[in-house]
């Protein structure tokens, strides 16, 4: 284990455009958040729709929904 502590800082645009793994991971973490009202997703493979997922008018962040087990 390296006993250093490294800090880096970036503006949001730099984070979005960056290929740096740490910034990419942080931006991915932002995509978990924000208001979701009604989620719908088709899982598609080779243009064939396989599964439809509907989250009827969900009123919370996705991480909260998962913890409360409210996924339909």
């Amino acid at each position, binding site marked *: 284990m390296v006993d250093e502590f490294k*800090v880096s800082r970036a503006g*949001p645009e730099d984070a979005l455009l960056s290929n740096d793994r740490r910034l990419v991971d942080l*931006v991915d*973490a*932002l995509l978990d958040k*924000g208001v*979701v009202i*009604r989620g719908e997703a088709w899982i598609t493979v080779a243009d064939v729709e396989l599964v439809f997922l509907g989250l009827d008018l969900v009123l*919370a962040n996705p*991480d909260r929904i998962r913890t409360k087990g409210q996924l339909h």
Partner: protein
Amino acid sequence: MTARALGWCRSETVLPPPYELERLGRISLVTALPEGTGAREVLAQQITLERLLESYVPTNAALADRLEDTVRWSSGVEGEILDRLDALEGKTQVTMAFEMPEAIEPERDGKTWLRNRAIHLEEETELSRQLRRATDAILSFFDVTRSALRQREKNVILDLLLPRDGIQGTLARLEDQARTIGLAQLPGWNCTIVGPLPAYAFCDFPDLEPCDG
């Protein structure tokens, strides 16, 4: 209606193109970009939008709701959205990602991994304690609302809501504090700070009942 909903602001707001405003009583729904736009492009547009507004409740950038659903839902929860706009007035989000140290020695095979599993769990628990103590110490210097720590693989994410005024100076001080305290308390960790951002992590509506679709 084929535009993408980016979030809500107060109805008296005026925005330049490409943003459009759908007035819904005392709030307005901000739209731009065609439906089906990729999540990162939506995120980029929301970041730009956040700079134009004193207060703004963003939608999730990755999960696209149908605009008609968003409009219908918004009309029924105007008061709650207004309360949230009040709470976010003059505030902005900063997100910190703490990357855990690498394991002391990589496992060579499954048998070794199984044997060392309990040790790893203890290590992770201790690392979490370390991080909680260190983040408490870092944030004690700031006027901040914070989220709980949430783990995403090797990263532990912490979202902060900070005053927007003087945010660049605040970010510099946050970086300094993180470096000072991290050197003493978080050896082997890496910390990445990104901001200012729309307040994605502070837009939950946990008290609302689901509406009929």
